[in-house]
């Protein structure tokens, strides 16, 4: 195929993007939950101190 390198590069890029979007959509939500929970706990601790 004439444009093999670029076709593979573009295919890899799009495929990576789709997979990562799905993973990040799931795991990113969990990260946000933990982040807000940690901050809430830190704020409670500081208020108690």
């Amino acid at each position, binding site marked *: 195929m004439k444009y093999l390198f670029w076709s593979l590069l573009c295919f890899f890029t799009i495929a990576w993007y789709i997979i990562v979007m799905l993973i*990040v959509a799931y795991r*990113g939500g969990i990260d946000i939950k933990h982040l807000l929970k940690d901050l809430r706990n830190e*704020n409670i601790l500081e208020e108690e101190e």
Partner: protein
Amino acid sequence: MSNFNWLIDGPIVLVYLAGTITCGLLIRRYVRKVDDFLVAGRNVNLYLGIDSLAASEFGIATCMGNAELGFKYGLAGVTPGIALALAMFVVGYTGFCIKPLREQKVITLPEFFEKKFGKRVRWACGLVIVLGGLLNMGVFLRQAGDFLSIVCGFDSSYLEVVMTVILAGIALYTILGGMLSILVTDYIQFIVMSTGLIIVILMIIFKFGWTPMLEAAQQNIGPGAFNPFVNPQYGIDRILLDVFLAFAAVLTWQTMISRVLSSKNSRTGRRIYMNTSPFFLVRFVLPAILGMGALYYFGPDFQGKSIFAMPQFLSVVIPVGLIGILVASMLAADMSTNSSYMLAWSSVIYNDIMKPVHKGRWSEKRGLFWNRVLIACIGIFLLLYGLWYPLKGDLWVYLQVTGTIYLSSMSVILIAACYWNKANSWGAFAAIIAGALIPISFLVMQEIELTQSLTQKIGPYKTGVATYLVAAFAMIAGSLIKNNFKPASS
């Protein structure tokens, strides 16, 4: 004539805007300290770091600039993306500079430099970073306004109103929630942006065919469409600048390293870099495909500026319903970029330039207030600069030249601070002056009629490459001279 339908596409965009801004505003109650506001309390984990970094580094300006590269140079226009992806992976894998940087628990680069070179270098670095960063970001809003005007079919007289409305929405949640709001909205924006982009790209490929688009590029641009080395408008100097810029940006661009500095630890920071590196290919490949689609559709005789080819192409080929998703996704991309950039530059102004004023003694409440005022001021600057500055040449070249104002000197200073014991403040000052003077002179000379032909002759690429080399030379020479004059202090 645009396919955008206000009754069908309008509500899609409104629902997205209302949802994001509401989420951004709800997060503000978690912000208690300046650290929460600027680096989210350093609690950022891997996946949140990835989506936030990816979303903030892909805005409408990037998309338009990179689509213009695809339209003019074909897939050879992806070269900066390849350089960036490789640079990010290498830096993430080795921890080069970013590991010592994260371990110092600083908020900004200049804060790190103070430990090695003193307070004055910190202040000077802050100034150069803000100058380069704001000039770079100055064109974002206008590009967004142009894109939305074309895709939604507004009259160009509404451009200022569109720009102001976009900015007001972004500024509102950034001012109130800082990095925390940005992280949460970046998450939503990453998903909306990615979904919209993927659907549009697949639709374009299936509609026009992958091989016909590549053949159209070959026919209109020649073999240079697939090989930057043989492209007469690309060439070795431009490729070299792409590589320098890629490494410098990955090491020192405040919006990129702020994700490393906000991460839980240096290992997480490195993993964020390694895992996000392919996104920097996405950032160029996807817009380049859109640009090549525009070239296939309009041909080389496109009437109008090459930067408008992609939005005009999308406005006529994307059907009703899908165009609403596209506009929402591009708004998502732009909002996440602008909010991150506004926070990044305000954090440098507060943390480094204003340091002699507050000396780190202001209360958390006062610190938060001033950070919010700074973001509002940056918003006003963006509005005025976006309306005033007439963009000349490629958008990506403008971004490279303005970025070089600080990337050249900061990357040199960072490497020296981490790995060269003989580096000192004289070297740092010399690098800052050399690194800022050359690109600023180029931008000014480009505007003066008398010197325009000279700037065209030298070109932005040779200027950019020279800036990095001169900044490195200045760092070495300045440091060695000081060591010779004042050996005791070194």
